[in-house]
C-alpha cells in the first residue's frame, strides 16, 4: 500500500507540471487580457500594470518566474482582487466548498447507492420504476432549476428554510441537497446497473445454493461487488464536489471556490485560473489514489503485489 501511495506521488509531479504548463499557455492564447475593461486605459497605465505583474516580460521568462514561485508553493496574485494573493483567496474559499461538497457527497452516496440497490433487487417492480424515475429526473434537470425550485418552495412559499446566504447549519440544507441531486441520481443508476450484472454471476448462485440468507447474499456478495464501479466514479466526483459548484454557490450566495473556475476565466485572472486548476488537479489525483486503495480492500483480485 505504501508503495502504491509513493508511486502515485511520484507520478503526480509530472502530471501537475504538465497541467500547469498547458494551462499557462492556453489562457494566454485566449483573446482579451486581464486589464481590458469597459474603459480603455492610457498606455502609460497599462505599462505600469504590466510591469507590476511581470506581464511585460517575454513569455518564456514569465513562465520560468511562475514555475519558480509555484515551486515555493506561491500560487501568485490576483489581478482582479488587487490586494489579495491566490493563496489567500483559495484558503478563504476552499473550506466552505469542502463543507458543502462533503455534505453533498455523503448525501449522494447515502441516497444514491441504496436507491440503486433497491431498484436492482426489485427489478421490473414498482420500486424499480420509482427509483429510476427519480434518478432520471435528477440527472436530466439541471442544478439551477432544482435550486430555483427549492428556493421557491421551501424559502418563499413555505418559509421553512433560508433562500440563501451562509450563516448557520440551516443555510446548508438546501444547497447541499441541490448539489447532491445529480450525483445521487447518477450513483443510483450506476449501482443498479452494476448490481444487476453481479446478480447473474456464478458466485451469487453458489451463495444462494449453499443456503445463505437473502440479506447475507445481498450485502456480502452482491453489494460489495457492485460497489466497484461506484467507487471508481467517487474519485472524480469527490474532487468535483469539494472544489465547489459555480451554480449552487451562485444561486445560494455561498462564498465557496466553485465560482472562481468560471469568473477567473472571464476576468482573465491568469494566476487565479492556474491556482484553481492546480488545486483541482491535486485533489483529483488524491481522490483517485484513495479509489485505488479502496479497490484493493474491496476486491482481492486488484491487489498488486507490493
Amino acid at each position, binding site marked *: 500500500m505504501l508503495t502504491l501511495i509513493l508511486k502515485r506521488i511520484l507520478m503526480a509531479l509530472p502530471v501537475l507540471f504538465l497541467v500547469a504548463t498547458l494551462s499557462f499557455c492556453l489562457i494566454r492564447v*485566449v*483573446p*482579451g*487580457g486581464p*486589464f*481590458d*475593461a*469597459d*474603459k*480603455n*486605459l*492610457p*498606455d*502609460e*497605465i497599462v*505599462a*505600469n*500594470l504590466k*510591469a*507590476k505583474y511581470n506581464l511585460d516580460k517575454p513569455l518564456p521568462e514569465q513562465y520560468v518566474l511562475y514555475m519558480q514561485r509555484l515551486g515555493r508553493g506561491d500560487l501568485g496574485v490576483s489581478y*482582479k*482582487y*488587487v*490586494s*489579495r*494573493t491566490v493563496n489567500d*483567496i483559495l484558503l*478563504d*474559499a476552499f473550506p466552505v466548498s469542502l463543507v458543502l461538497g462533503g455534505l453533498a457527497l455523503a448525501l449522494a452516496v447515502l441516497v444514491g447507492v441504496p436507491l440503486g440497490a433497491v431498484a436492482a433487487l426489485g427489478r421490473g417492480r414498482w420500486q424499480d420504476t420509482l427509483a429510476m424515475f427519480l434518478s432520471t429526473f435528477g440527472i436530466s434537470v439541471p442544478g439551477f432549476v432544482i435550486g*430555483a425550485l427549492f*428556493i*421557491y418552495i421551501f*424559502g*418563499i412559499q413555505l*418559509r*421553512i*428554510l*433560508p*433562500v*440563501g*446566504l*451562509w*450563516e*448557520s447549519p*440551516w*443555510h446548508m440544507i438546501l444547497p447541499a441537497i441541490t448539489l447532491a441531486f445529480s450525483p445521487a441520481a447518477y450513483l443510483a443508476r450506476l449501482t443498479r446497473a452494476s448490481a444487476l450484472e453481479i446478480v447473474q454471476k456464478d458466485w451469487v448462485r453458489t451463495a444462494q445454493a449453499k443456503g445463505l440468507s437473502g440479506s447475507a447474499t445481498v450485502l456480502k456478495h452482491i453489494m460489495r461487488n457492485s460497489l466497484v464501479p461506484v467507487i471508481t466514479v467517487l474519485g472524480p466526483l469527490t474532487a468535483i464536489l469539494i472544489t465547489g459548484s459555480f451554480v449552487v454557490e*451562485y*444561486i*445560494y*450566495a*455561498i*462564498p465557496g471556490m466553485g*465560482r472562481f473556475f468560471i469568473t477567473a476565466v*472571464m*476576468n*482573465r485572472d491568469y494566476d487565479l485560473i492556474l491556482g484553481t486548476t492546480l488545486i483541482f488537479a491535486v485533489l483529483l489525483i488524491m481522490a483517485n489514489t484513495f479509489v485505488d486503495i479502496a479497490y484493493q480492500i474491496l476486491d482481492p483480485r486488484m491487489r498488486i503485489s507490493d
Partner: protein
Amino acid sequence: MLTGCGQGRARYTPDTLRVNIGNEPPGLDWHTATDSTSFDVVSNIMVGLTQYTPDVKCKPSCAKSWDISPDGRTYTFHLRDDVKWSDGKPVTAYDFEYAWTRLLSPETAASYAFFLYDVENAKEWNAGKLRDAARLGIKAVDAQTFKVTLKKPAAYFIYLTAFCASFPMRRDVVQKYGNRWTEAGNMVTNGPFTLQKWQHEYKIELAANPNFFEGAPGVKLIRMFMVPEQSTAFALYENDELDFIDNRSFATPDVERYRESPEYKNFPLLRESYLAFNVKKKPFDNVLVRRAFAMAIDKNVFPKILRRGERPADSFIPPALAGSAKDSGMPFDPDLAKRVLAQAGYKTGAEVPAIDLLYPNREDVRLIVEATQDQLKRNLGVRVNLVNQEWKVYLATVRKDAPPLFRNSWGADFPDPETFMNLFTSYNGNNDTKWSSPAYDALIETAETERDPVKRADMYRRADRIMCREACAIVPAFLATQNIMVKPWVKGIAMNPLDLQFFKTVTVK
C-alpha cells in the same frame, strides 16, 4: 436574525441596514479600485476634499473652502481642523499629498491615475519619465493647506476632488500592513462608517463612526451581502432579509410585478448606450449611409423591450448635464432615411451588403441589438447579422479592429459633459469608431478650459451636434436607469445619477 425559520422573527433590526452589493469588491484600496462595487463601499467609509450632494454638485468636506488662482491653474484647499481618522489622528494636507503622489506613482500601477493627469507633471511622473516628486503639482503647504497646480485650467477639476481615487490616505498604515492594509482591523478611514468585518466573497460589515465630523450616521451597522444571483437577492428582499436592493438584485419580471408598489423607485443614470460605426469600414465610410441608419432606428422601442424605465437618448450628453439638447442627434424618419440611402448610391436597402453588428454576450444587450436588427430591416430593408462575443473577447476585438457596427455604452465618472465628450476626441484611447474631427477636438479642448459655464455648455452642445448629427459617428440609444426597492422602515435613501450610494443619511426605525 438570519436563522432558518421564517415565522415569528422580527422583520428587521432597528439601526441595521441590510443591502446587497452583488459581488466581492475587487479591492477597497481606492487607488487601485475602478469598479462601482468597490466604490459603493469606499464612498461610505471615506470622504475627500469635497463631496457630492444628491444632485451631484460639489460641496465642502475635508476642505472647508478653496481658492482658484486667476489663471485657473492653481487650487488652494483650506482643510478643516476637526476631521479625524478612525484611529483618532487628524486628517491633514500631508495625507492628501501622500495619497495623490501614491496614486500617480508608477509602482502603485493605479488604473485611475489618469484622473489626475491634469496636475502638473503628473503624466510624466506616472509614466516613470520624471522621478522627482517635488516637481509634481501637489503640495501640502502646511497641515491645513493643500495646493494643487494644474498644467492647464480644467473646468471640471473640482469634481475630481469628490471622486474616490482622490481621497486621502495614511502613509503609516499602508506601510505597516502592505497589501493587507484594506483588511478589517488594519484599515484606517475618515468617513461616516468604518470597516468592521470583511468575509471575502460573502459579506462586509460597516460600523457607524461616532466621531465622524458631520455627526454619527443614522444607522449603527450596515451589512453588505454579496448575492450574485438576482432572483435569490430578490427573494431575500421579499423575505425581509434585505432592506434595500437595486438593479443588481432585480430581474425584469420582478420590476414588472412591483412597478406600482410604493417600495419601488426608478431614476435615470448618467450611463448611455449607443450604436457606433467604424467610419473607416464600408459602407460606413460614407456619412450618408451612417445618417440613413441613424434615422431608421426608433429609439422608443428600447425602453419598451428592456422595461426598466430607460429613457430614449437624443444626444450623447445626457439631459442632466450642461450642453445636452434634444436636437443634437438624428430624428427618427424612415422615409428620409431611404432617400438619404438612395443618395449614397443604394436604391434599396437590399443593395447594401449585409452588415455585422457586434455585441457582448449579455441578455439585455442581446435584446437591444435584436431590436436594432429588426428596425433596420423594417425601416430600411438592410440585412444585419448579429455577432456576439464573450465580454473580454468583445473588448479586444473592438479595440483592435472594430467591426462596421457595434454596440457600446459609457458611464459618467464625474457629473460633467467632459466625461462623455472627451471620449470621441481623436486622441482618446476609448474612441473605437476611428472617427476624428479637428473641429470637434478643438471645441472639446477649448471647453475644458472655459470658465464661463454658459459658453462652455454651448461648446459641448455644438460638439455633440457635430458628432451625432453632422458626422453621425454614433447613434445615441438610451439612458440606463437605476431601479430600487426600499422597505417601509428604511428612510433617507438618497440616490444620485452617478449611481453612488451614500448611506450616512439612512435610518432604520
